[in-house]
């Protein structure tokens, strides 16, 4: 991580700071580190596989990857599944990406943003070649086709709503015009659904959104074989425009949904890499000579999500009191064995989006919680709070269990209600809850974390009613945050917003937890970064 402040600034403005944490290691973000628990201390989040053996990278070999979920639909413009993202990220390419701390070229080599913040002109590489059987150069027309395809039937939700037109302004130049300024737009371009595919391959597979199940792109790997339900194989694209990329001959992805089996498969040598390792398994892999860990901090943001229209949570005093009761460090220790951080907001300390709450931060202080409730006329007298959760995500389940215990210590009655994940998700969207232990994947742009949860136009359910304190101001800030393109102004906007979140508690932030992958000791070159996609082309296998 360069200490040069200009570099750092550009980088952070693009990625919102998660990568900084991933690359540089997490420093304390105000909460005490969670190393003091009973289990062996967890070192700060750094990559463990940075050291390479003598001789440097070797090419060849097949990397066997144990994936945490089943293989589902692969059409990049249609699906929202992680496995689809991962496959498509290696097979297809986005216009831009993020590398070494800054927005970086991928299919676009250069870009220019118009003074009015509404036109984005991208110069494309002339060397990108589509995989066989298409086998031709990619041009601006392909970019236009792809964005028009992903923009039909609201497939991308509101992400592309701001785009008024996409035009090929040259053979290798594309211009996007937005109907209004929309700051998150640029960062979205580095995410997977926004990949470029050739029309003839889509048409050959049926043409409709969802039909494109054997992705063809310009990426370092070619989609080669798929046994539905069994495994999926990617093979190296020999004509990839970068010399010596990728290093591997092939990647074989096998779904192993059971976490114990996944770790066993890695330890038994049946897999070279497994994703989605739990904190409790991480220590075992870290201590074994045959395996190692790869960690990325802050991939998941855990919170107590609150329906501010539901009694007794509609009373801000109740939310504030609960925020003071939570023992965040204990939750991080219990839920993820310390592979994470207590957190009061989604962005880590070294992100430009991190707002220093100072002394106002609602740390654990049971007396203060009781004082807040007393001042409000004891609204929880005779009440039992219910916290909905599920068993699919251990972070959510443990958070709910410990919260109930924390609340009991403060003399507040509470219970958990354990739901099946699909049910909890429906309750979340329909607003059928008072509070739930919830977590969301880390988002590059703060608009993505806040707008949907608070603004009435955000999602299906408005979690922060207009009758709540500062509601109008919060809506206003969210609108300003997405329409304003000046970075300094955006930072101020979200800082004020975070201040109001801390004051009114529409949710209670609890933790940022690490994404952990397990690797065999002879696997190198995995570079965790801000997005949950593995870049297989940087990876290689040693002896």
């Amino acid at each position, binding site marked *: 991580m360069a200490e040069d402040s200009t570099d750092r600034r550009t980088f952070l403005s693009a990625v919102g700071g998660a990568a900084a944490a991933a690359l540089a290691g997490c420093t304390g973000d105000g909460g005490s580190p969670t190393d003091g628990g009973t289990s062996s201390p967890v070192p700060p989040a750094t990559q463990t596989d940075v050291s390479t053996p003598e001789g440097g990278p070797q090419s060849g070999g097949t990397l066997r990857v144990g994936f945490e979920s089943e293989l589902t639909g692969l059409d990049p413009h249609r699906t*929202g599944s992680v496995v689809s993202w991962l496959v498509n990220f290696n097979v297809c390419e986005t216009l831009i990406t993020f590398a070494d701390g800054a927005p970086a070229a991928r299919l676009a080599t250069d870009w220019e943003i118009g003074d009015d913040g509404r036109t984005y002109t991208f110069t494309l590489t002339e060397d990108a070649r589509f995989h066989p059987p298409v086998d031709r150069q990619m041009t601006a027309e392909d970019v236009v086709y792809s964005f028009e395809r992903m923009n039909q039937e609201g497939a991308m939700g509101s992400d592309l709503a701001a785009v008024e037109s996409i035009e090929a302004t040259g053979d290798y130049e594309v211009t996007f015009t937005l109907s209004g300024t929309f700051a998150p737009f640029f960062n979205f371009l580095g995410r997977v659904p926004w990949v470029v595919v050739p029309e003839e391959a889509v048409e050959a597979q049926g043409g409709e959104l969802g039909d494109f199940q054997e992705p063809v792109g310009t990426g370092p790997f070619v989609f080669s074989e798929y046994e*539905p339900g*069994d495994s999926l194989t990617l093979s190296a694209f020999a004509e990839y425009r970068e010399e010596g990329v990728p290093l591997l001959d092939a990647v074989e992805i096998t779904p192993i949904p059971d976490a114990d089996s996944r770790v*066993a498969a890695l330890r038994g040598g049946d897999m070279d890499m497994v994703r989605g390792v739990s904190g409790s398994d991480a220590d075992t892999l870290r201590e074994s000579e045959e395996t190692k860990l790869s960690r990325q901090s802050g991939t998941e943001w855990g919170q107590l999500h609150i329906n501010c229209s539901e009694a007794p949570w509609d009373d801000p005093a109740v939310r504030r009191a609960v925020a003071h009761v939570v023992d965040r460090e204990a939750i991080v220790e219990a839920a993820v064995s310390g592979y994470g951080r207590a957190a009061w907001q989604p962005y880590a300390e070294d992100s430009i989006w991190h707002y220093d709450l100072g002394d106002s931060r609602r740390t654990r202080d049971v007396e203060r919680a009781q004082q807040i409730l007393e001042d409000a006329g004891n609204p929880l007298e005779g009440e039992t709070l219910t916290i909905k959760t599920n068993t699919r995500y251990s972070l959510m389940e443990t958070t709910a269990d410990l919260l109930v215990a924390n609340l009991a210590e403060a003399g507040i009655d509470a219970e958990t209600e354990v739901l099946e994940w*699909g049910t909890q998700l429906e309750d979340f969207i329909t607003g059928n809850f008072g509070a739930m232990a919830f977590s969301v994947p880390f988002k590059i742009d703060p608009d993505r974390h806040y707008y949907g949860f608070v603004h009435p136009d955000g999602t299906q359910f408005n979690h922060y009613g207009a009758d709540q304190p500062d509601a109008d101001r919060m809506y206003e800030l969210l609108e300003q945050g997405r329409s304003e393109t000046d970075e300094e102004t955006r930072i101020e906007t979200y800082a004020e917003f975070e201040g109001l979140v801390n004051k009114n508690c529409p949710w209670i932030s609890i933790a940022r937890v690490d994404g952990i992958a397990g690797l065999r000791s002879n696997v190198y070159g995995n570079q965790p970064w801000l997005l949950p996609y593995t870049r297989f082309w940087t990876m290689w296998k040693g002896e």
Partner: protein
Amino acid sequence: MVSRLQAFMVRRLLWALPVLALVSVAVFGLVRMVPGDPAIVMLGADASPERLAAVRAEMGLNEPIHVQYVDYVADALRGDLGRSYVTDRSVSAAIAGRLPTTLFLTLAGFLVSITVAIPAGLLSATNRGNALDGVGLGFGLLGVSVPNFWLGVVLLLLFGVSLDWLPVAGYVSPLEDPVEGVRYLILPGITLGTAMAAVVTRMLRSELLEELRREYLDAVRMKGVGELRVLAHATKNAFIPVVTVIGMQFGYLLGGSVVIEQVFSIPGMGRLLIDAIGSRDYITLQGVVLVYTTFFVVVNVVVDAAYFYLNPKLRGEG
């Protein structure tokens, strides 16, 4: 005899049809009573209202349920079980791809249990009260008490991780590569077969003990027939109730395979089922449950036929 067996089989098969029809209605209704909107599960917490509406319409979820049902059955009768909401692939094809895997797994479990249970039951019964019997009884007790998934994980850690003798995760079809295929099936087969082996051992032991006490055997013995032949006589009769148990257990094996597929990452129907439940993929879920039910019904018919064949009274030879 043949004609009676045939008549019996026809009757049983005719019974199976309403059972399947009933199951299809029940599954269709029950699946939709489970809370959780497939569109929401598919699109996640931050889906826009427009996108949710579009996906619901596309899935046909806006139609009245009876219309959905009639459409479904009409297609199903033509062999088309619909297309998965999640993967957009044909459910019939998905099931066809996974059914052999589950059948091989179930068969492996069956073979393991029979291979263990029959000798164990015979030895236990003929050595009543001594150490061998104790081992058999102990195994029987342990086998039923130990949960499948736990045994699976223990075997996996012992033979897959610590000793590294056998593969831990995945599946190779025995049809493609018999040696590798069998290697992949050993641990799951043992895990799956143990509980059934235990039940069958105990059943066979007690039935055999019962049978060996019968007077007709004394008559047989008096004819000067050797003990082994006597045992063979007794075993055949003891098998009548045991066959029923084996049949029922075969059904449980099929149920157990769901858990085993999860533990050993075997891409069979059980995995398809669990995944379909998690993602509220109604179409896939219905298809898989129907196939499981059909399978269960077929097993029952076969068991009845075997029972009919073994039991002289039913055959009209009594």
